[in-house]
């Protein structure tokens, strides 16, 4: 909640469930019923009888003020995979042939899979060991950034682009 306050994003707060429901735009009747069913089902930190059951960390919601984060949306964490590359961070065609001038690193590249391991979040895999060095390039002296839309997302320039593993064209 401190983070949301720092960001200037609202965490709805109300002294009654009805009031909170109005704030987040759901039916007060349905919401109060949901909370009441949930509370009634809480047994030793779980709600085996609630629809759907909650296995653990269940506590009754009965003491105001009540809080709500709303609205929320889906935020993607990772894809697991990415662009096929070799040990020099060169992008590959599906059959393994090198695509001249196209490099990929970080989250955009399937680096963890290149090393033959299943890793979660391969962003640091190449970024930590300096993508351009692996690619055997001096991107500042020899390279130019592609006019890709993705590149323009990063106003801090090349270092950020590489850190985030967006495509580098030389």
């Amino acid at each position: 909640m401190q983070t949301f306050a720092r960001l200037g994003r609202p965490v709805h707060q109300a002294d009654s469930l009805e009031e909170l429901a109005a704030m987040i735009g759901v039916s007060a009747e349905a919401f109060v019923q949901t909370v009441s069913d949930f509370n009634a089902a809480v047994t030793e930190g779980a709600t085996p009888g609630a629809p759907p059951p909650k296995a653990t960390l269940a506590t009754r919601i009965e003491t105001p003020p009540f809080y709500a984060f709303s609205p929320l949306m889906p935020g993607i964490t990772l894809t697991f995979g990415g662009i096929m590359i070799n040990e020099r961070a060169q992008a590959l065609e599906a059959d393994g042939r090198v695509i001249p001038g196209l490099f990929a690193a970080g989250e955009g590249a399937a680096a963890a899979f290149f090393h033959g391991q299943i890793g979660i979040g391969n962003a640091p895999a190449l970024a930590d060991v300096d993508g351009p060095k692996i690619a055997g390039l001096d991107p500042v002296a020899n390279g130019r950034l592609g006019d890709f839309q993705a590149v323009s997302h990063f106003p801090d320039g090349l270092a950020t682009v590489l850190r985030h593993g967006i495509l580098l064209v030389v």
Partner: protein
Amino acid sequence: MMVRGIKHATGDGLLMAQRAGAGLKGMGGLMALHIAAVDGVETAAGQPARVVPYAISINRDGKRFVDESAGYVPMARQCFRSLVSLLRWCSTSRCAKASRRA
């Protein structure tokens, strides 16, 4: 580095590389739905993920739909299931209407 919810993670880098002929690998993992509920504006910084297991999560009907203590992947799956059933309901009701008209 936490990249969840960053606005740049749109997949356009992957699409551009594909247009240049690059292959993709390991993308089946995307189907695991590592997708968490984040704030609608501050998508990267505003993430109540640590609160969710202790709270209840409700849909627009004001109803619970998932075991909140099970983590964000089951939640994403449940959201998509609801979406699919909603779409199915829409399409079947449209079919029903169409067949009544026919």
